């Protein structure tokens, strides 16, 4: 018995099937990149009584209360001015001025001898503060540091901080502008 050759399968609709699958994956794909503000938490304190002494002039106190109002350095502040206040505080001033934080002479690779600020920004929030406000404050502080880094990068390497490619240069800038945001141990001031 002579075998009849099997008729060829019509592949014309293959494209349609593939399209269908393609559209399914197109719709379900989420290509969102997660973005956010990265911070490093301090290790837990061993004995809370032993406070680290930091001179008053080296601290910029930022307090946020449960009504999302700001107290910056003992005065009522606002989000709009926080960045400039923080920036002004963190710019190293030398010769020594008692109204500004102390400076420290450091020798940094690629930059050389430079005065760096010993200032610390202390952030304290209430349990009732809204997360939105907290992030806004964190963002403004980050902005202040980023601008300082940018200026430093511009001064020494002639380009903005984000455009630096050399690892050593990035490290040098990070050393020259240390990000010192200290978050106080939580305290229950205003209740939940």
């Amino acid at each position: 018995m002579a075998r009849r050759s099997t008729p060829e399968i019509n592949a014309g609709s293959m494209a349609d099937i593939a399209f269908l699958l393609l559209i399914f994956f197109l719709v379900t794909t989420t290509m969102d990149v997660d973005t956010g503000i990265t911070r490093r938490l301090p290790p837990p304190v061993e004995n809370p009584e032993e406070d680290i002494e930091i001179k008053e002039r080296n601290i910029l106190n930022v307090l946020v209360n449960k009504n999302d109002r700001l107290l910056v350095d003992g005065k009522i502040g606002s989000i709009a001015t926080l960045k400039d206040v923080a920036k002004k505080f963190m710019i190293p001033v030398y010769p020594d001025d008692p109204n500004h934080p102390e400076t420290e002479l450091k020798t940094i690779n690629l930059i050389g001898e430079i005065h760096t600020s010993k200032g610390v920004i202390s952030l304290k929030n209430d349990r009732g503060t809204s997360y939105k406000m907290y992030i806004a404050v964190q963002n403004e502080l980050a902005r202040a540091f980023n601008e300082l880094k940018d200026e430093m990068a511009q001064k020494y390497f002639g380009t903005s901080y984000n455009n630096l490619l050399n690892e050593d240069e990035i490290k040098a800038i990070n050393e020259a502008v240390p990000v010192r945001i200290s978050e106080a141990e939580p305290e229950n001031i205003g209740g939940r």
Partner: protein
Amino acid sequence: MSKFKTKKGKGLPAINTSSLPDIIFMLLFFFMVTTVMREVTLRVKVRLPQATEVQKLEKKSLVMFIYMGPPTNTAVYGTESRIQLNDQFARVEDVPEFIAREREARNEADRNFLTTSLKVHSETKMGIVTDVKQELRKSGAFRINYSTLKNQK
């Protein structure tokens, strides 16, 4: 002149579409490989706050997520902000165990680079967030990322 006439008579040849499925399949495979299916169902509402100074969160495999916000099903769970770990609601005390389990799932070398991404609803009070942060400190998960949307300003 006759040259042109003969061409006109034949008309346009049909485009060969036999390789079209292959092209489509190629695209299909690309999307199949890049797709990350959402593995958790959100039980809390998370509307992220906006910020300008954001960094990209790299290495998705080294990130664990903690969600905080008001429950989506307010009729059953109320409106008070809750914590969600994996697929279910959790209490603050459950956070260290969650961290330990997540660490366990990663290989030895990567454990120190684990980042905790906090996805918190913007209207959530800081109290619960601070509690979670304290737990993270105690468990040694120091690298955190406050998840925010990038705000074009």
